[in-house]
Every structure is written in C-alpha cells, then in structure tokens.
C-alpha cells in the first residue's frame, strides 16, 4: 500500500520509472482480468492501455482512497463491460465472429506457457454468467471486497457475494467434470 502511494507520488511528478514499475506490477493481473472478461486478448490489451492512459492523464488530481490495484481493476471491469455492450449492440459479421471464436482459443504460446489448466479454467470462467465471472475475478485477482464489487455492479454486497458463491460452485462442478465446460 505504501509502495503504491509512493509510486503514485512519483508518477504525479512525471517519473517514467514509477510508471514502468506501476505498470509492471499490475500488468499480468489486469491483463488476465480483461482477457477473461472479454475473451479477446487483442481487446484486453487495448483496454489495459486505455485504462492506464486515462489514469496518467488524470493522475495529477487523482487521490488514492483504497488500493490502486483495486481502482485500476475497477476501471478495467467498467471498460470491459462497455466494450461487451458495444460488441453486442452491432451485429457481428461472419468474419468477425470467426475471429472472436478463434481468438478465444489459446494460441501456441499461450498453451505452452499456461498449459492445460489455463485453458480449462479460462474456458470454464467464460461459461459463467458475466456478473459471476466479474465478481470472481475482481475478488480473487484484484482483491476487491464484496462491498466494492457491489458498487461496481450496482448491487448489494450480499448479492455480489451470492454471485461469487454461485460462480465458484459452478466452476467447481465444471472443473470436477460434473458439468461439461
């Protein structure tokens, strides 16, 4: 937390080193969050870049009240939701649909690095209702509380927690082979 505050303090003064450290610190988790929510690595990278650029643009007046990671993760989740909405609102062409399906499949590099578990888990996550995916990822990858997630999803903390429990149970069933992912 102190480290976050310190990096933020330096970033406000234009430190490129602080920017690199901040980005490097959260890159993997935020990219995983975006990729899992969107199911499209290309869009996930754009979301991450967009969130950080906006963050830099407004950093001078930014006041950290919780964790920076939580704040950035919330931005990623909001941006991902907007993108999904936009993707849904326009009819996908055949080529685009094929592209999306293809991009959901892990590439050779992804497979080599992350292995079977990555594939199974991300596949199972993608099968969950979006709100459940979101709450699981925000809670486990960004350490947000159910209260904070409730604010993101505009529901009560209890509802957020229920979504989490349902989601985890469903994931458990899928990964234990009881439900076909």
């Amino acid at each position: 937390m102190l480290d976050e505050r310190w990096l933020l303090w330096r970033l406000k003064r234009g430190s490129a080193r602080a920017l690199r450290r901040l980005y490097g610190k959260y890159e993997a988790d935020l990219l995983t969050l975006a990729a899992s929510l969107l199911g499209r690595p290309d869009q996930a990278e754009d979301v991450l870049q967009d969130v950080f650029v906006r963050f830099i643009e407004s950093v001078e007046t930014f006041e950290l009240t919780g964790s920076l990671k939580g704040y950035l993760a919330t931005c990623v989740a909001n941006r991902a939701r907007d993108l999904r909405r936009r993707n849904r609102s326009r009819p996908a062409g055949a080529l685009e649909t094929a592209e999306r399906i293809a991009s959901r499949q892990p590439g050779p590099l992804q497979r080599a690095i992350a292995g079977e578990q990555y594939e199974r888990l991300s596949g199972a996550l993608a099968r969950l209702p979006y709100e459940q995916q979101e709450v699981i990822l925000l809670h486990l990858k960004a350490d947000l509380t159910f209260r904070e997630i409730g604010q993101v999803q505009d529901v009560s903390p209890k509802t957020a927690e229920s979504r989490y429990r349902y989601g985890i149970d469903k994931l458990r069933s899928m990964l234990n082979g009881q439900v076909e992912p």
Partner: protein
Amino acid sequence: MKRARDIERMVQDLRHPVDGQTHDRIVGHLLDALKRYQQTRAAARQPHTGRIIMKSPMTKLAVAAAIIGAVVLGLFEFIGSDAGSGIVWAEVARRVEASPGVIFRIKENGKGDPNEQWPNGYRVMQRNVTLSRMDWYRGDEIHRTVYFDLAGKTEIWVAHDKNVYSRQTMSDEKIQKMRADGLGWTDPQGLLNLGLSLEHHALGQKTIDGVLCEGIEATGPDGSTGRVWVGVETGYPVLVEIERIVDGNVRHTGTMDQFQWNVGLLPEDVEPEIPADYRPLE
C-alpha cells in the same frame, strides 16, 4: 475432487500470458502519455525563483537549497518501498512538498564563499513557491538581504553594511526565463530528476540537538556527498550536510539546519523594510 478453495487458488494463479512485444508496445504508449502529461503540467505550473538566484552572488545558497531537495527527493527515488527504514520516506517527501513555506539556516565554507566569516557567518532563508528572502549574518549583525516576489514581480537587494538598497520591478521576460531555466528547491519534479543519478546508503540513527533522527547519505555524480537527517517523530528534515572537494583539495562544506516547516509566508511579512537612511542604488 477440487474443493472451493482449490478453485479460488486456481483463479488467483490464473495468468494471461504477456509477450514482450505487447508489453513494450503498451509501455511505449504509456510513456508517450506521460510525456504529454508532463508538458501539460509544466505549462500550468507557477514560476519559480531558481534562476535569478543562481545568477546572483548568492549562488551557493541557492545551490545548497536545491541540494536539500535534490538529496531528499533523489534519495526517495531509490528508497522506494522504505524497506529497512524506520522513516516513512514517502511521507517525508509528501510533507516537504506540502509545506507552504520553510525557514532554515545555512552555513558553509569553501573557496569563493562570500560568507567568509565561517564559522560565525550564516544565512537565513525564507522561502515558498513565489517568495524568497535570504539574509546574510556575520555574528549577530545582518549584512545583506535579497528578496524576490515573483507574484508581485518585485526584486529587492539590501547591503546593510553600506546602507544602500535596490528595488526593481521584475520583467515578465525575466520571470519567464526563470521559469524556463531555473528550478529551485521548491520544484520537486526537477529535483527528483536531478536526484535520479544519486546513490545512497542508510546511516542509521543519531540524536541531533536532542532530536532522534534517521539519516541517509548520497553521493552525486560530481563527487559531492549529501546527508539528510530526518526527525523520527516529526518526519521532517532536521539537518542536511553537503561536502564537496573543489579544485582537487579544497573541501567545501555546507549545512542546513534549524528548519521551520509549514510556515505561512506573506509578502508583507517577508519583504525587507528599508531603513530611512538607506540610499537607493542607481
């Protein structure tokens, strides 16, 4: 059979692979955004008094003052997470920056030092982002005063030993030039950049004037060594020491102490009063 906790752990460990090319591309975009941010920020910033001081006979004072910030802030760049230190350095940096004004004493010796009566001579500096006043003392006698009010565009020099003074209106060009060239110690960003090249090590704790302090030592690229001692309880710098070898064998030393942080400085309080018998310089 996986339990809920196993699933949670799996999600926590889930990592989307990041390839180096993507990382570099995004970081490149972010650095561009940071550059734009810096430009916007620089354009909106208030003027500083640095350059004019550097051009004055009081150069050393300004340098010393700059070094305070350079050492303090430069060290912070490297300390980062405060590991191994009882002092929360990020908090110190924030306090120093947030202080609306500061008063401190400077003592120095070395070749070319106009304050030749070391160790009896000293200077008192009062400063905030637009005001700057320095008083030279020899023993208890005030010797010289120089004052800048950037907001009021006023510059005053007083030679108390000669009973003369100079009062001038600062031109916009001069202020603009100061903004472009000069970065006084009140500019954390400039000082931070200056301090980036400094290496440091912790000095541990010692009591200075009854105050328990924690110190750090840094060596600059020019070979100068700076030490900053921060009060453990207050979290503000208490003593700054600078040492430098000039011309191969002349040791130049300077200390800054007797800090008063969070002082509200107003032009009407800080502007020097010119005694009636002083004559203006042409």
